[in-house]
């Protein structure tokens, strides 16, 4: 049997397909996994680590785990039998506390409404098309105010709920969101003061920022819980949550101020000079020329600070506020659920990961969208 051969004139042979080893998945694997001996070893090492960690974790967290039908850890163990998986029942069992803390049962709809309003506000702020409509924008400003009255109560015929009943995810959101939104304007003022040509302003702003950044947040929270009452007029009784909110806000303001200062420093002097040449006043030039550019380049840093602040809300548990971690620690301190610390920490960890990872992805997206191509 002879293969059919065709004669081509010299140089007229049609292009042959590339050798199978130089395209497609084989080529990719050769380039990315087995390009050298050491690389091959590292690949197998990596795969081995994945094999060591991932299947046991999936087995523990999903396959062998128990969610429903157990009222205590003992019952969990009974259901699981030989395979020891995670006992998620306590999360299910105490779900109400994880979300609302000790907010009275019959008033929880108020928190639900506030959650929905907050979600709407965030959606409006993030989606450009919605933001363009004035009525919607006004609603976005009103929603937090409504939420505030809803949650605190004591007016409009709503029963008052004292702050020591607040807890769980509600508390995390209150501390995190208040810190984020109140600290930003303070941070802008601090940053402008620090680079101001007026020495007194820059002196005090520098001292304030360096002091706050130089000490751990936990010491500031201790000040809020033990010392702040010394500094206030005698007889005044300041709510602990409010004291914590103040401390968290100035803490994050100091960090964001430094981020914004970096952004301001990156604006070429020509922009300042051009604003002056146009006859703009200080505030006009800041509002119209400098800050829009400076804030734009500071966005990654600002979101980074927000993520940090959101994670730091867990510290309030150390001074006795009941955020989800505090609720969970109280749960695993009971005899029913003792010994479930790993489950608790993994659960809370996943909760924070979802929000923080989401924020960091959004910041990447924003960075790409706002990149007007002036970058060098």
């Amino acid at each position: 049997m002879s293969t059919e051969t065709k004669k081509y004139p010299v140089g007229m042979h049609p292009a042959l397909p590339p050798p199978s080893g130089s395209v497609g998945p084989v080529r990719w694997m050769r380039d990315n996994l087995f390009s050298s001996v050491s690389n091959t070893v590292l690949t197998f090492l990596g795969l081995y680590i994945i094999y060591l960690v991932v299947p046991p974790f999936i087995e523990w967290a999903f396959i062998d785990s128990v969610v429903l039908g157990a009222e205590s850890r003992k019952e969990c163990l009974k259901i699981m039998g030989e395979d020891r998986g995670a006992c998620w029942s306590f999360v299910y069992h105490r779900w109400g506390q994880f979300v609302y803390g000790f907010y009275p049962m019959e008033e929880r709809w108020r928190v639900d409404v506030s959650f929905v309003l907050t979600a709407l506000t965030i959606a409006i702020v993030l989606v450009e098309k919605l933001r363009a409509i004035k009525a919607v924008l006004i609603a976005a400003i009103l929603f937090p105010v409504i939420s505030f009255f809803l949650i605190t109560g004591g007016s409009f015929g709503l029963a008052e709920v004292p702050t020591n009943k607040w807890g769980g995810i509600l508390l995390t959101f209150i501390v995190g969101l208040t810190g984020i939104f109140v600290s930003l304007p303070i941070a802008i003022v601090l940053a402008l003061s620090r680079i101001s040509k007026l020495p007194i302003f820059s002196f005090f702003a520098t001292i304030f920022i360096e002091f706050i950044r130089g000490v751990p947040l936990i010491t500031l929270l201790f000040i809020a819980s033990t010392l702040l009452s010394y500094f206030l007029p005698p007889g005044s009784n300041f709510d602990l949550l409010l004291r914590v909110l103040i401390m968290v806000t100035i803490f994050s303001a100091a960090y964001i101020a430094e981020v914004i200062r970096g952004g301001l420093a990156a604006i070429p002097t020509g922009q300042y000079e051009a604003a002056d040449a146009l006859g703009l006043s200080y505030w006009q030039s800041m509002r119209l020329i400098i800050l829009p550019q400076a804030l734009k380049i500071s966005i990654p840093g600002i979101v980074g600070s927000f993520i940090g602040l959101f994670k730091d809300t867990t510290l309030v548990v150390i001074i006795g506020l009941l955020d989800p971690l505090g609720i969970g620690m109280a749960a695993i301190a009971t005899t029913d659920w003792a010994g479930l610390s790993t489950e608790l920490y993994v659960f809370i960890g996943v909760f924070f990961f979802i929000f923080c990872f989401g924020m960091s992805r959004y910041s990447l997206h924003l960075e790409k969208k706002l990149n007007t191509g002036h970058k060098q």
Partner: protein
Amino acid sequence: MSGTQVQENKTVTLGSLWRDKKTRGMILQIFAVIGILIFIGIIISNTVENLDRLGVKVGFDFLSEPANYDINQTLISYDSSDSHFRAALVGLLNTLLVAGCGIVVATIFGFTAGVLRLSNNFVLNRLMQVYVEVTRNIPVLLQILLWHGIIINSLPVPKKAEALVEGVFMTNRGVFLPQPIPQEGFGWVWIALLVGIVFAVFFKRYANKVQMQTGKLLPAIWIGATAIIGLPVLTFLALGSPLEVSYPALKGFNFKGGFVVKPEFMALWFALSIYTGAFIAEIVRAGIQSVSHGQTEAAHALGIRPNFTMRLVVIPQALRVIIPPLISQYLNLTKNSSLAIAIGYMDLVATIGGISLNQTGRALESMGIVLGVYLFISIVISALMNVYNKRVALVSR
């Protein structure tokens, strides 16, 4: 037109003062100073009044009173009859210990992960990305608690522990290690080490000079390393090994002898290193990526070999970008070590800012000390940072 201008300049009204940039600046600053002074005054008068009302005296005399509490990990000798001041000192040393150990391991983790993140090996690249994203997005307090829980719950009790290597036991009361106990004459080994280091430094300088003059490269790193390791080892052997080792042995419910690393310390050390390592990995990645590819190509075009290109061209330029944020991560790690209080590791905040404060009720003074110490550490490190930045700053044209 010119007439009006002259008139405006001559009549000084409040409005014209306000329109003048310099005067307005002065006025604003005076108001700011007055405002701040009033604010501080109110706080001080409130504090004095409050302290008066509560009958609390202010002063640091309580520091010399006995502390009356135990600390489970002490680097210097301490017992409960020692003063609050000594307790604070023990706490400070514990803070510095965990910060120091954490910085070393976090740097190793961070540089490894940062470099692997840039490798063309798909598996490792993605693995490192997962490590960085997961640890960066979970609160460090949670990670500390998680590691503490894992160590306490999954390691065996001392009675059931089996030796990993001879004399090494991993238990839920800590990791027990053989402890070397220096005998008489061991001091000479330290002196030999010092001599080795001094020799290595001077040899490196000499090698640099030779290279500048003749272009010859002397193996300075190898000779230096040999001196630093070899001299102490030789001295040690010449003195007849003046070192005894104390092995941990099970007595009752716990091990006696040897050297123990407490679970609190391990959990804190591990969690802080992993957490900060993830941030350092991103810094290292950004630093290496910031060196333009043209630099490498130029070096190759000059005929510089690849490993020298890395060492003499890429790394020095990357370090200029890496080091400032790296130092600020070190500071963050030190500050985060204050979360020790959550798992009962007795650091500065847990000793003087925790138990001492609660026992004596001296909140102002105790918190003042804690804040002062942290501020001092931050200021010293940022001062060093500024010196470094000035040294490596690009001379801009």
